[in-house]
């Protein structure tokens, strides 16, 4: 039994400690907003927050999480001005295409704006380049982050 705190709720899950958080979220807890893309921390579609910082759930054994709390795309606080601004910017600019990478992108962007409220292009690039988008929505992601930053500034 492993214990993990997700979106404010503590769950006991019957998995081995080496099970990556991603599969606990998706296959045990049914939280499918966090996606699977590579399993080797290369694509970022599995990005969730661990104590508020973006991490790759596919490479985080659930047994290593301990007391830290996990937030997924389903659990982000819509009342938080940054969360709200990011989501709004994303829909205003129609960033998504297939959309598969986007929950991860959104989680990464929220994480970035929490630490760097008004990022430069270079800061956006260095924080977001670990999140792949096969559809190539990068131009709009960059714009959306600037837009969201402007909203919350």
């Amino acid at each position, binding site marked *: 039994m492993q214990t993990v705190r997700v979106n404010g709720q503590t769950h006991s899950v019957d*998995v*081995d400690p*080496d*099970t*990556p958080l991603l*599969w*606990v979220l*998706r*296959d*045990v807890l*049914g939280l*499918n*907003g*966090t*996606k*699977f*893309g*590579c*399993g*080797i921390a*290369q*694509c970022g*579609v599995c990005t969730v927050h661990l104590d508020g910082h973006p991490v790759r759930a596919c490479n985080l054994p659930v047994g290593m999480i301990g007391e830290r709390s996990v937030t*997924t*795309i*389903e659990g982000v606080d819509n009342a938080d001005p940054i969360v709200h601004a990011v*989501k709004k910017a*994303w*829909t*205003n600019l*129609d*960033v*998504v*295409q*297939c*959309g*598969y*990478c*986007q*929950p991860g992108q*959104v989680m990464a962007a929220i994480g970035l704006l929490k630490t760097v409220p008004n990022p430069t*292009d270079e800061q*956006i*690039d*260095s924080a*977001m*380049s*670990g*999140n*792949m*988008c*096969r*559809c*190539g*929505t*990068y*131009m*709009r*992601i*960059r714009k959306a982050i600037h837009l969201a930053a402007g909203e919350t500034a």
Partner: protein
Amino acid sequence: MTRMPLTTRRAALFGGGGLLLATLWPSASPRASTGMLVENATAPFAPNAYIRITPDNSITLILPNIEMGQGIYTSSVMLIAEELGVDLAQIEIEAAPPGSAEITGGSTSIMTEWKPLREAGAAARTVLVQAAASRWNVAPSSCTAASGVVSHTPSGRTFTFGELATEAAKLPLPKEPTLKAASDYSLIGKSQHRVDSAIKVNGTAVFGIDINVPGQKIGTVAASPVMGGTVRSLDRDAAMAVRGVVAVLVNEPRDAVCVVAEHYWAAHKGLQALRPVWSENDNAHVNTQTIYDQLHDGLKGPAIIPSPKGDADAVIAKSHSTYSAVYQQPMLAHATMEPINCTAHVRPDGCDVWVGTQVADRAQETAADVTGLPKEKITVHSQYIGGGFGRRLEHEYITQCVQFAKQTSYPLKIVWSREEDITRDRYRPAYVDEVTAGLDEKGHVTAMKHRIVGPAVVARWDPPELTKEGYDEDLSVATLITSYTYDVYRLEFARREAPGVITAWWRGVGGTRGLFVVENFIDELAVKAGIDPVAYRRELAKDNARAVAVLDRVAKDSDWSDPVPKGRARGVALQFAFGSYMATVAEIEMQTPETVIIHRVTAAVDCGQVVNPDQVVSQIEGGLIFGFSAALYNEITLENGRVQENNFNTWRVMRMNEAPRRIDVHLIASTEDPGGIGEVGTAAAAPALANAMASAQGHRYRTLPLLSSRNQEKEAAR
């Protein structure tokens, strides 16, 4: 391959179909839950119905294409809504079930749906207005329909569509409903937000991989690493000993094994413990070079010659000079962001399949084949697709899933690892092309001869579409079908099927492969003639006003005639493919011969009447970046019949920090029928970039990927 009666690809490309039925459906139906494509298992379904309106005024559009990122739901909805008179916000959407669904591919969606969808909306509006008019006993012409309401203008009375639905359904549908004049459009041509934005941002959109059917178990799969191998032995006990593993399955052709578990990780560990051993065969001797050698070999010898114009050999022989170049393109994986997956529940009396597919009909056919159930007993539930790019025009993973699910009583979801996804993909084929031009004393083309050596993808994918001579018309795109006019022209096709792999469609299909060669070659000719590449193309395309217009526009917007900023270089490409024209200029910088920074890309596009302009721009942006990724980095290689690239550490994808800083897309206003847009950006990427790199480095880039060391060696030797 299963045989299937389907709208052939060719028909889809050139506008087939056209049967229109707009059915008003008075029965109550479940409303769409957010993001989930509505299931309609119970309600009787009229095929080819696009619109369903229920008395409670819920308006559902049933869309014939599958959303895989291209924004087709939004533009399809716009087409219907424009004529029907509803707001986008009022609409629920569903994917059409097999039988009515089109093949989503080849950038054909808007081309094929442009008229039928508007007519569907108009027909429905006509009967709704009629129903209202007869209730009020007024002339239909005094009524209008907007925002889901019919109003009698003089009296101000109104009915919602829902209130009229039952009556309207009894009225005969007009055969040729009157369509709005383009000047009256309120939606078409004006950027609308995507209907699937919110659910994809908040994580509630359901992709195939997210399916969660009660009682389902999750399996992960390993297929023979060498094509055609079968499983010889496996350590079943070791796999079953992994906590959470519930079954080890071998499929019927014995070319794949599946470990089933309570969750993916247990299945994954089980598969590692299973250590399947595979039989070897001749394919185990295939290496990348085997394939290239075979292709180069095809540059000589017999070929198929579709519709030659004049006697190219004779004219070339008599020309002032000749110029010739050989180009090579690698195999490519699709590597869609969502790894391959499929869920199936096979029961004695029926089978459900939940999957993201571009070919729902084939999904149904194959499930029927594998289970032995009649087609009607197979229900395909189409899901959002996390990237298609041609991968989901294949259905072998659905076959495989049903083969495994047949052995289980529970619904089985199979999820391929990324490694499986890349190493067992069906690949865009490798090609070798040779182009030869006869030139006059000014360096202009007198005759052109173009030989393509490679597979005919259509021969496997849709055999009847291969011409009698054995030609795959897909290869005509950007070669025979071009914005240029040649007085004398001959296309030759020497078919060589790659051993050891299965080849398939890939974003941009023939256009992507053809354009790299032709636009590279034309650029070489321009440089050789000492003529500006834009001017050289303009001359060659002068009979084609739409082509000239995009070229002129891109030259202006990209500051083509201004000096290139220091350290940078520009390259241009012109194309006519998928019914759309586009000219592209890439402005790049190469600090070293191995690194390319793309500063700026400018494109001018004429894709006919634009439905949703902002989404056209979005598709061009994304298509370019997808194309740049492949052009710069990607190549599938084989060693001993085994694919060497297997995850994103070895299959490199362009990241945000490598993406262009700026992409400017200019849409040319047009009243022509809409062309496709999902693939035009991808096709433009490699030639525009290759030409810019050639200009930067002073030697040509005739081999893809552009950063391959083969380019350096080959060109240096030249």
